[in-house]
C-alpha cells in the first residue's frame, strides 16, 4: 500500500522535530523512539523497497534499521548531519547488505521481475508494475527538478546520470548497471566515477555560492 508522507510539513519543520526526537531517543526514551519510527518508517521503507523489492525481506531490513538506530542513537552527532540523512544512510546500507546475502541467487537486472512467491508479493508485483510507478530516471528527474541538484545533474552525461540513478535507487552494483545498460564493466565504472566527481564539484560550488552545505533541501 502506498501512502504519502504522514506529515505534510515543510522539511525544515520536520527536521527540527526529528532532531528533537532523536535527542530524546539518545537518552533511551522509548516513546520518542516510537514517534521517530512513525515519522520516518514509510519514507525509509520506500527507499528499502526500491533496493530490495521483496516485501518480506524489506520489512526485515527495516526492522534491523530501527534496532540499529536505537542501539547507535547515542553515537549520532546532531552537528554532523540531519537525522533523516543518518536514517536514510542506515536504511540504504542495510538494504544493500540484504542483497549481498542473496548473492548466491542469480543476478537480476530488474527487481520488479523477481518479485513473487507469496500471495502478498503478487499483490505488490501488480502495484509495482502499475504504469505510474516511477523508474529510477523518473525519480532522478523529480529529485533534480526540486533541488539545487538540477543543474548539477544536467551537467552530467546521460550515461553518467543513468548509472548513478540505477546504483542509487535500485541498489545496483557496477556489474548490474553494466548488464542493465549492456555496456562493458570498465566503461560503467568510469561513468559512475566521473558522474560522482562531476556531481561533487558542481554541488560543492553551489553550496559555496549559497553559503550553506545543506544545498539539497530547498525551502
Amino acid at each position, binding site marked *: 500500500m502506498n501512502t504519502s508522507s504522514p506529515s505534510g510539513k515543510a522539511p525544515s519543520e520536520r527536521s527540527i522535530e526529528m532532531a528533537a526526537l532523536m535527542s530524546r531517543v539518545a537518552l533511551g526514551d522509548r516513546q520518542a523512539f516510537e514517534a521517530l519510527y512513525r515519522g520516518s518508517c514509510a519514507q525509509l521503507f520506500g527507499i528499502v523497497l526500491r533496493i530490495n523489492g521483496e516485501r518480506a525481506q524489506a520489512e526485515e531490513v*527495516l526492522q534491523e534499521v530501527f534496532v540499529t538506530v536505537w542501539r547507535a542513537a547515542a553515537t549520532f552527532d546532531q552537528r554532523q548531519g540531519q537525522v533523516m540523512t543518518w536514517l536514510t544512510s542506515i536504511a540504504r546500507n542495510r538494504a544493500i547488505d540484504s542483497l549481498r546475502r542473496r548473492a548466491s541467487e542469480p543476478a537480476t537486472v530488474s527487481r520488479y521481475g523477481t518479485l513473487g512467491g507469496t500471495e502478498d508479493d503478487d499483490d505488490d508485483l501488480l502495484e509495482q508494475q502499475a504504469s505510474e510507478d516511477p523508474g529510477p530516471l523518473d525519480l532522478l528527474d523529480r529529485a533534480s527538478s526540486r533541488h539545487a541538484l538540477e543543474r548539477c545533474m544536467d551537467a552530467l552525461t546521460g550515461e553518467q546520470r543513468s548509472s548513478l540513478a540505477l546504483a542509487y535507487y535500485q541498489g545496483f552494483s557496477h556489474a548490474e548497471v553494466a548488464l542493465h545498460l549492456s555496456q562493458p564493466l570498465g566503461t560503467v565504472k568510469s561513468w559512475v566515477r566521473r558522474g560522482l566527481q562531476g556531481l561533487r564539484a558542481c554541488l560543492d560550488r553551489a553550496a559555496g555560492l549559497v553559503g550553506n552545505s545543506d544545498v539539497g533541501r530547498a525551502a
Partner: protein
Amino acid sequence: MDYSRRDRAERLAAEYALGTLRGAARRRFERLLPAHPALQDALNDWQLRLQALASPVQAVEPGARVWAAVQQRLFGAAPASWWQRLGLWQGFSAMAAVAALAMAVLIAQPTPVQPPLVIVMNSTPQGLEMIKTGFVASVSADGRALVLRPLDRVTLAEGRALELWAVPKAGAPRSLGLVATHSATTTVLRARLLQDTSAFAVSLEPAGGSPTGKPTGPIVSAGEV
C-alpha cells in the same frame, strides 16, 4: 594503502555512499571508518550530497509486524493485549495534538468553569493501514456526553462499521455504539462515561457493529483518558 589520502578517501566514500562499493571492499571500508576521521568526514559529506536524491522516493507504509518485531528484539516485551498497549500508541502525532489543542481552546471558551476532557485517539499500526485517521473525543465534565470527531475524512469498505468502546482498567470493553461515518461527529449520551474508563478505542467491525458485544475486528484508533 593510505586511507588518509584525501582523493582516495573521497573516491571510496563516494562509491560507498552510492552503494557501488561492494563485497569485501565494502566490509573493509566499514572496518576502517572508526579509525580514519578523513574517511568518516568524506562519507558524511557524500551522504549529505546524495540525500537530495532520496526525497522523491514514494513512501510505503510497512506492515505493523515490523514495529512489533523491533520492540520484541530490543525490549523483549511479549506483545500485550491491545488495551494494555494503549500507552504505547500515544506516540507522537503532531496533527492530533494540534487538533486537540484547537478543540480544547474552542470548547473551553464558552464554559470556562468546567472544560470537557479531551482525549486524542491516535491511529494504531493497523489503523494506519485501514482508515488512516485518528479521532478526538471530548467528554463533558459531568461524564454524560461524548463527542467523537475524526481528524480526517473516514472512508470505509462496504459492509464495515466503526465501533466506539470505553475500555476499563480491568475487564472487557463496553460498547458506546457505532461511529457515524455520514456526519462529521458522533455524539454519545450516556451516564458515567468516565467511570472506570481508562481509555477509549475504535474498532473495525462488520456493518451493524460487533456481533458478540466485544471488539471482534482490529482496533484502529485508541487514546488513554
